[in-house]
């Protein structure tokens, strides 16, 4: 799965997907090219998180129709861990707590799994700690974070920052950030957003899933999509988000 400048990072065609027999995404389409940041906005229940989970391969979700190409290849046939190894990253809306497993060892497992997949030598704990300390700076995370258990006893803001630290360590090709801004106060929001900006590159892509326009003040999207009832009902430049903020979701839902 090599991407050159012209292969899109993500192409979704006519996707129907849902959970427990209920179809949530209906005939969903999107095209994301390298270097782009797409924002997907929409009210609760419009299918934003379903999209994130389906891309990541959460086994609870089922795809009933349509195709997903990641760097030109069929993404849906890959197991979740294989998708991750190929560079698909999901910043979870609700990151889970894993007591007893330190952030350092969790991230080293993930980092080394990727190194191994790429045919590179694994990194020992000491070297990894140096790598990790650098990455912590991306979102101004304190160093004691390294020894703490993954998300265990973390505040809501710390959990969201942790997702971005992980993104910084794993350097994904496609990062889907599922409401990473929710639950953050204004300072934390700015720091997390700056972290995301630092991770933007010409050869990767980011999908920001959000309720609110405020994250987009800091991370400028190339395209904004408005999702309603499982379908993109409007796409446009960054200014679309501002317009939406003024007019509310009723505007696009045509109520």
């Amino acid at each position, binding site marked *: 799965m090599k991407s050159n400048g012209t292969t899109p990072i993500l192409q979704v065609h006519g996707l129907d997907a849902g959970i427990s027999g209920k179809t949530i995404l209906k005939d969903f389409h999107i095209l994301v090219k390298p270097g782009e940041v797409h924002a997907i906005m929409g009210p609760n229940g419009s299918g934003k998180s379903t999209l994130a989970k389906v891309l990541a391969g959460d*086994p609870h979700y089922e795809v009933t129709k349509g195709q997903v190409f990641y760097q030109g290849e069929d993404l849906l046939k890959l197991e979740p861990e294989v998708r991750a190894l190929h560079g698909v990253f999901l910043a979870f809306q609700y990151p889970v707590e894993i*007591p007893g497993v330190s952030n350092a060892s969790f991230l080293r497992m993930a980092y080394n799994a990727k190194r191994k*997949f790429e045919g590179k030598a694994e990194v020992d704990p000491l070297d990894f700690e140096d790598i990790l300390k650098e990455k912590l700076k991306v979102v101004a995370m304190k160093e004691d974070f390294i020894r703490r258990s993954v998300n265990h006893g973390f505040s809501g803001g710390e959990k969201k920052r942790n997702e971005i630290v992980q993104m910084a360590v794993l350097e994904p090709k496609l990062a889907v950030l599922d409401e990473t801004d929710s639950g953050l106060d204004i300072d934390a929001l700015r720091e997390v957003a700056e972290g995301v900006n630092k991770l933007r590159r010409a050869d990767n892509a980011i999908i920001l899933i959000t309720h609110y326009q405020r994250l987009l003040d800091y991370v400028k999207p190339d395209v904004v999509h408005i999702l309603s009832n499982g379908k993109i009902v409007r796409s446009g430049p960054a200014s679309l988000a501002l317009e939406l903020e003024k007019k509310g979701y009723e505007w696009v839902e045509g109520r």
Partner: protein
Amino acid sequence: MTQKIIQEITSQEYKYGFQTAIESDTVPKGLSEDVIRMISAKKNEPPFMLEYRLKAYRHWLTMKEPRWSNVSYPKIDYQDISYYSAPKVSEKKKSMDEVDPELKKTFEKLGISLMEQKKLAGVAVDAIFDSVSVGTSYKQKLLDVGVVFCSFSEAVEKYPDLVKKYMGSVVPHTDNYFAALNSAVFTDGSFVYIPKNLKCPMELSTYFRINTEGSGQFERTLIICEEGGYVSYLEGCTAPKFDTNQLHAAVVELVALDNAEIKYSTVQNWYAGDPKTGKGGIFNFVTKRGKCAGKNSKISWTQVETGSAITWKYPSCILVGDGSTGEFYSVALTNHFQQADTGSKMIHIGKNTKSRIISKGISAGHSNNSYRGAVDIKRSAENARNFTQCDSLLVGSNCTANTFPVIDAQNPTAQLEHEATTSRISDDQLFYFRQRGVSTEDAMGAILNGFCKDVFRELPGEFAVEATKLLGLKLEGSVG
């Protein structure tokens, strides 16, 4: 999707379930004074031993099988068990190299080498096959520095005074139903004597193997550590797969004198019964107790319980000596239809005595896992301290975990702490790992290891690694 992967790896079988084809000298099933006399005669025991057995048997007859534990099992027919089974050997072997090759092969297959040249680095092994010890490695070398490490039978013969003095001093023959039964019919076991001020230069280890169908295993272990001595001892166990239940009722007694320290570790992997039906498996009813007889002495129990259909055991410490310390570190894993009721009892008698209980219960499948503990502070125990932590981890939604802690403090200066948590390995946790590129198996390993690390770090060196692997193996396919 997860479901599918899980099913693929579920078929992991109990790999120690084979039976060795070897001719055995097995006494007919049944229990009576005659059978006990026969066992005693087969072992050429001195009269005091036979008397002890008979006394225990007569007491046992007056007792009732305890049913207070949180496990259920069919009635045990004590007349349907053979109380003695030994591989046929013409004469006692002087060195390990003379041990029956078939037996040696069995232990090799279990990963236990009895050949000293191929031994586990720095570990002396006593191998017990059904009712008897088939050989002890490094015996002579240890004896040269003053450490006695031999089978219990040999100790009765060669060190009768020590046996007479200490046997039953920690677990009397009247203690409980299974201890009384053991005292009547025990066949062999290990004996360790550490002289004054000696730190035992290597890990001592006993490996128990039940081979014959329909036989029970009733072994006794006695470890005596004189003033200032130190010993670390490890016990391992496996059994073949049989559809019938087998009874294992052992007694372990530890005695630590002034400033002595005994570290006793167990990795128990008896056959747990059929994973689908729960049929067969070992009933593991064991009494383990240590007495910190001397001042500032220390006894530390570490156990990793992964096997047996039923586990009923409470390694305990009686803290008599002032300033003595008792510790209990436990990981008990139950899967499929296994039941475990395990924990510890710390009895504080001396002043400034300390105890620590760290219990980690992991339940999966349809299993039932209970922690039962007692902290008993006697009136004489000024400034006693206890810290207890019992954590339960649930895997899947058909298992149960319980804790039954009891605290009895008779002295107002006691400081007691008790912490308990219950958590679950969830699909969401596993998916989180997978989304970061880590496989389900590695994720399970990391979570289990994280849960158990406070206990595993108490295990001697390479056994910690073994224990981690064993847990992973036992739980494969439990999350779906």
